[in-house]
């Protein structure tokens, strides 16, 4: 497909502004650019057709089943888009929060932030939450900075290490390093969970924090988590909950009750805000009693019916300029109010039911990576098939040809030829059945005509792309 730049015609344009109703002002030539930026010169219909055609070369949840493990690709309700577009939300200037003079103009926004933060805290058994962090990884960094602030405040200068399991998302170790920590990896056991003895082997007085995902990226609940929390707390290390898989346990158990001190939420996963091709997300941080004084500021507080801002005395400061991705938080708030108490509990119940159903239907054709019961996602290894020449990636590409998005493949790194399937709660039984039928058919084809999988995809706008060429002959912009 052509680039928009290739559609440019000198002198063509789309948007016009009103003729200047004031005298034209000029800046000194030495302050001005030599030439106008070489933006495309195209008409509005050119732009509309171009981006419409691009959208048709994409696949979203609205198109098809998107069982991308670890990403919680659930349906994004339309009402959330409507409320986020309300002018009273969408058109608020962030500096309306910078001056007390304007506090009266944003009471509705403050009320929403205050209630959302309280609900997030309640859902996870935390004392408080802050919606400042802009994305999941940013929430992790905020959490790691909070842990560092706690230890600095307590004079725990010797604490310089964070423990992360080998099955963790790469953001965990990377975030810990950005917060100034050294990282020690702890291996998972062959059953896919953390065992107390392996954990004890790396635990010592230098440990400042432990970052866990629960259920972990193998889709398994860390049954030893409460004991791990005790061990961590014995040396005054803090326990961090990576909320990537919170969808599995909402309303069933709470990280705070399990002993976690700090966490981040992924509103774009658990609370259904659109993934937007990879962002914007929203990654609020939640804290228990120990870290409460250090939360990012300013915070919305409520006195005598009036909302205002305060910064906690020992706050780590601003992690975002204002209230993070506020309009994403608005969507999540609408989602939470829609479902409420009973609805939110049902979310995790059906998410786990669906994953177990897929597991039950596929377990004879694909080898489950672990023998323990899965939670919201099931993880298989295509190693037996790969030994005969059909790799996990081939199954992924063959699914694209059959109208599905692929599961997550090759993550986590701890499982060879990994196929990680997360159906979420919003898919119907007939969708799951059709997907399972397709997977079983592919398992049969892998035995009988492996080339069909190896040559896939053939129905997509382009075939498998040459990533080596992309990396060697770098072409990252049309200049």
């Amino acid at each position, binding site marked *: 497909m052509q*680039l928009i730049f290739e559609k440019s015609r000198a002198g063509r344009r*789309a*948007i016009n*502004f009103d003729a200047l109703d004031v*005298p034209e*002002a000029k*800046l000194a030539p030495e302050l001005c650019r030599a030439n*106008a930026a070489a*933006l495309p*010169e195209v008409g509005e219909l050119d732009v509309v057709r171009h*981006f419409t055609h691009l959208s*048709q*070369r*994409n696949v*979203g949840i609205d198109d098809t089943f998107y069982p991308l493990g670890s990403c919680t690709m659930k349906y994004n309700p339309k*009402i959330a888009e*409507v409320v986020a577009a*309300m*002018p009273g939300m*969408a*058109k*608020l*200037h*962030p500096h309306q929060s*910078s*001056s007390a003079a304007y506090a*009266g103009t944003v009471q509705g*926004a403050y009320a929403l932030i205050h209630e959302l933060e309280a609900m997030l805290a309640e*859902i996870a058994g935390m004392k408080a939450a802050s919606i400042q962090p802009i*994305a999941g*990884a940013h929430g992790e960094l905020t959490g790691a*900075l909070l842990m560092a602030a706690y230890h600095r405040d307590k004079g725990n200068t010797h604490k310089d290490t964070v423990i992360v399991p080998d099955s963790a998302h*790469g953001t965990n170790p990377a975030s810990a390093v*950005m917060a100034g920590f050294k990282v020690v990896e702890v291996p998972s056991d062959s059953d896919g969970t953390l065992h107390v003895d392996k954990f004890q082997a790396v635990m010592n007085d230098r440990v400042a924090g432990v970052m866990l995902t629960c259920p972990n990226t193998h889709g398994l609940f860390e049954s030893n988590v*409460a004991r791990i929390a005790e061990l961590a707390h014995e040396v005054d290390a803090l326990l961090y909950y990576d909320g990537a898989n919170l969808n599995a346990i909402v309303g*069933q*158990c709470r990280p705070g*009750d399990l002993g976690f001190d700090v966490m981040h939420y992924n509103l774009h996963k658990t609370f259904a805000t659109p*993934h*937007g*091709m*990879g*962002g*914007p*997300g929203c990654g609020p941080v939640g804290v228990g009693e120990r870290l409460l004084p250090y939360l*990012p500021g300013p915070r919305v507080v409520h006195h005598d019916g009036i909302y205002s801002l305060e910064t906690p005395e020992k706050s780590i*400061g*601003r992690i975002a300029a204002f209230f993070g991705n506020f*309009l*994403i938080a608005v969507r999540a708030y609408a989602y939470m109010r*829609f479902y409420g108490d009973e609805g939110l509990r049902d979310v995790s119940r059906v998410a*786990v039911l669906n994953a*177990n159903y897929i597991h039950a239907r596929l377990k004879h054709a694909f080898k489950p990576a672990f023998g323990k019961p899965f939670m919201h996602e099931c993880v298989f290894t295509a190693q037996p098939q790969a030994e005969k020449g059909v790799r996990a990636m081939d199954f992924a590409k063959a699914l694209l040809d059959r109208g599905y998005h692929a599961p997550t493949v090759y993550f986590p790194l701890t499982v060879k030829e990994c196929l990680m399937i997360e159906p979420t709660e919003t898919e*119907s*039984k007939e969708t799951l059945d059709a997907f399972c039928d397709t997977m079983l058919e592919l398992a049969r084809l892998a035995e009988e005509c492996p080339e069909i999988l190896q040559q896939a995809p053939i129905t997509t706008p382009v075939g498998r792309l*040459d*990533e080596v060429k992309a990396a060697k002959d770098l072409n*990252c*912009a049309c*200049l």
Partner: protein
Amino acid sequence: MGSWIPTTESERKEMLAVIGAASIDELFSSIPEPYRMRGWEIPAGLSEMSVRNLMAGLAGRNTADAISFLGGGYYDHYIPAGVDALSGRSEFYTAYTPYQPETSQGTLQSIYEYQSLICRLTNMEFANASLYDGGTALFEAATMAVRIAKRNRVVIHPSVNPTYVQMLKTHAANLEFDFVTGDDPSGAACVLVQNPAFDGTVRDFTALGDRCHAAKALLVVSFYPVSLGMIKSPGEMGADIAVGEGQCLGMNLGFGGPYLGIMATRAEHVRKMPGRIAGQTEDHDGRRGFVLTLQAREQHIRRTKAMSNICSNQALCALRAAIYLCLLGKEGLRDLAVACHSKAEYLKAKLDFAQILNEGPTFNEFAVRLPMDAHLVTSKLLDRGFLAGLPLHDVGAGETNDLLIAVTEQRTRAELDAFAGALKDAACN
């Protein structure tokens, strides 16, 4: 109570039978019993209609229709209808990270085009697929410069947004960066400058860039994209890294986000740049296609040694910026910048009762010292339907009488006249 869960009771029973479990509760048996939840304080669910009414009520308690002169890094520009119409296509907004490039060419090509547009706007050679916002982009630029120069002193020029400075210090709290205010590049990894400055002043940092390079330091320029319709670009000034807040390129003000963190650099530094990057390649039939490339820099591969912990980008915001820049085009962006600058100059000339604080020329924003407290003035102006600007003392950037006033293309001459009159009434009586 509503639900987006389609599974009926009888289907649940059928599925449990296939699984071989007696109840859904049994599927949660790996959660130790003492930790199973018994109760929480979450309100009952609502119908979609009630949710809409509830949210309309909250929105109604906010003021979003005042005539706005608020800026300070975030501006009330017109968003062409095409931006919402196209970015609102659910093939875009309900998709995720392009892990499967064959079915994500829309995402990947739009990122590639966004990167191209940013390079053309800034006169830089490589742009990434975007970061969170202008403030985090400046922090990432500082860490990138530290990595390249292998020095830890970061010089912050007084032109930089004070909120960004706070964010820098929060993010780098444990990184042993040596933050210094000023413009002396000797021994530094980089000098961070902002153009136009937080107070709106336009400068030419070319000479500072030369001094940086002589001292083997990097020049990092934080820019305001709309101003580049007119003023000298970071690339023309010799910037090594250009970062900016992309809100002005078609993003709603949205009380702070989602916004768009722009980052671009020179070819020699591309492997030290954080964030996703899309690149062009081809498939086995020679068809043009796009993939995420240089991923070995990123956290999912490099883990503790990644260039940043960032995983996502603001892809949907980058798409909006790309659509916006295409709709404006070469002439449109220049017209926009000229309109913003001219209207601001018109207003500035009318405020003869106030002291202009800027030492040099300004683009579309300027700081004034009023004859009385800026809080009192803004409160009075609010009653007359104006958001009069940002009281600078509240952001730690001035005295109590100082006000930062921004003007965009959306303000008409009649509004500027009315505002100048109202401001004079309020400030001088």
